């Protein structure tokens, strides 16, 4: 079957599975969101007979219906983009999510691309000058970067650049009073606010990318086809881009799925530190405010974003490697 067709067909299935998991977490996890919500409502003094009705209004689940009915209701709700009502913000969950999703995507996409490009360039140069001073220093640097989590960079940047030197804002995605428009003021404000989060998120990932690229690059440089290409008298540029870079980057693509997952999950901490109004920030706000419908909405949307992100990354894989067909293996 056609790879792209197969891959596209997987998307709805995965999203269905993810929504099912979310339902399971809400409804079936002992001590999970559902139980907590009920406890919270009771504590607020809502009469016991009204609790079910309140829950139904907040989360698109009818607690007194049989489980399969609840599941169907939830799924229909998700399909209609009805994820319930946020308790703390007092507006539909989907509105909050629609507002915050672009910021998270912006952070993750920009920083991941930057990280990938910078890491690959550094790693390629290291492989090319293997054993040189540059190689040794950057290898040491990469190993060090591997051992510093991104939120430490975030805290340090925030301390020195935002609080002490006041070069950058300490929170939010745009300055107050700047309206969303296609104006220069808006864009510069957005960039100004996003610089530190993106910087922190990019730097921490460069180490592993560079080390990977270095290893792959050295391996590819030793291959016979590179030697043959040299003997054929191909230009250095052509060898570097078409022969070495392509084959060295390929193995790193397989890690991309995990990478995007780790980075999307990581926004939870990153956005909270920078008070950057993305999905992760709202998720933590919801946790702190016991706003369970919003929390589960954030969880669902972050997961769906990951599924879609990986799908898009997979589609570009075909551009680099024309041989995408993993043949099924025989059973022993």
């Amino acid at each position, binding site marked *: 079957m056609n790879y792209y067709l197969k891959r596209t067909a997987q998307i709805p299935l995965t999203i269905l599975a993810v929504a099912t998991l979310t339902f399971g977490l809400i409804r079936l*996890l002992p001590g999970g969101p559902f139980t907590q919500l009920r406890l919270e409502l009771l504590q607020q003094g809502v009469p016991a007979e009204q609790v079910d009705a309140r829950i139904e209004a907040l989360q698109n689940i009818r607690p007194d219906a049989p489980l399969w009915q609840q599941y169907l209701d939830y799924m229909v709700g998700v399909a209609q983009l009805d994820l319930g009502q946020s308790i703390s913000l007092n507006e539909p969950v989907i509105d909050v999510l629609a507002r915050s999703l672009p910021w998270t995507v912006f952070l993750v996409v920009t920083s991941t691309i930057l990280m990938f490009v910078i890491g690959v360039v550094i790693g390629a140069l290291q492989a090319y000058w293997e054993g040189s001073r540059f190689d040794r220093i950057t290898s040491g640097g990469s190993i060090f970067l591997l051992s510093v989590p991104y*939120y430490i960079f975030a805290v340090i940047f925030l301390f020195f650049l935002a609080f002490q030197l006041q070069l950058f804002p300490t929170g939010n995605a745009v300055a107050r009073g700047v309206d969303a428009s296609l104006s220069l003021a808006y864009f510069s404000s957005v960039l100004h606010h996003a610089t530190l989060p993106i910087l922190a998120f990019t730097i921490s990932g460069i180490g592993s990318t560079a080390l990977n690229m270095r*290893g792959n690059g050295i391996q590819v440089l030793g291959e016979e086809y590179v030697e043959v290409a040299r003997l054929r008298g191909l230009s250095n540029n052509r060898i570097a881009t078409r022969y070495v870079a392509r084959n060295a980057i390929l193995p790193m693509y397989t890690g991309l799925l995990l990478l995007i997952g780790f980075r999307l999950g990581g926004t939870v901490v990153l956005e909270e530190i920078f008070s950057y109004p993305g999905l992760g920030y709202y998720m933590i706000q919801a946790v702190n405010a016991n706003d369970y419908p919003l929390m589960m909405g954030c969880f669902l949307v972050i997961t769906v974003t990951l599924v879609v992100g990986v799908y898009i990354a997979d589609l570009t894989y075909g551009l680099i490697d024309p041989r995408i067909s993993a043949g099924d293996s025989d059973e*022993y």
Partner: protein
Amino acid sequence: MSTEPDSAAEGIDWRSESSNVEMSRRDQLSELYEQKIRVPAVVAWSDDRTRLGILILSVYLFMALVDVLGLWRDPSPNQADRFLRPFENMQYPLGTTNSGVDLLALIIDSTPFILLMVLAGGVWATTLAVAVGTLSGYKGGTVDTVITTISDFFMAIPGLPLVIVLAIALSPENPILLGVVLTINYWAGLGRSIRSQVLSIREASYVEASRTMGTSTPRIIIKDVLPNIMPYVMVNFVLAARYTIFAAVGLYFIGVLPYSGQNWGVTLSNAYYQGGLFSMQALHWLLVPIIAIVGLAFGLILLSQGMDRIFNPRVRTRLTGESESVTEDTDASTTEMI
């Protein structure tokens, strides 16, 4: 470190087996010591990175020991003046917080907790990944399809948000439970990459031979497949451990994990939210937990870089003087993208 079940990786299995008959128990033990402990130790120690890594990790083990034996005071408010700077008063070498808590005591006090959690996370993630990865890679067919589908699903869930939801329900305060919860879906990705390693091993001629002889699947996996992927597994064990500590501290930092008593993440969070950000005076309060976290991760990474050499048979033979014409291998496989 020397948990390799068999030395088949070196390909000298047949030789040692034939000589076993005449060897006394004592000789066997001394050979075992030579093979499993001395040679790896020598190889490990010969590399600067491993040496530094082991030294750093011993410092943490030492701190854990100090706490277990109760050799340093427990942290408590007002045990000293507020905001002492590091080395200002040698009674409190790392300084104190805004409520006069000895920072060194804070760090030492939570070391056993952190180490246990890191160990639990690493063991859980790698064991599960190895089991799943070898089984699906070696068996192939339907088993493979089922396992791959399941792990694909788990890979499609971002780790930290899932942990946050689970933490609300489970309130994991036990370090071992916490370690397991933090790496709840880490095994999926690792299992996937172990599977692809196994895929290339299953076609090897010695595996084919075992299969022809009618050896059972578990035995083939343990005797033929595992020793070959052991280096990769050990390196990834360390990386999983690193992931556990990063995730734990991150979540403690933003305050979504329950805790009793402070630990590095909570200290960092307190320093950050209780005014450590606004003045240079409290900078050390922020830096001490940061150094503790980065130091542990750095030690782990150095160890994983050096571990590659311990398991790399080519480096080992050169060290024991059996071969001279060996070029150093580059560590292409050591760092997964994380």
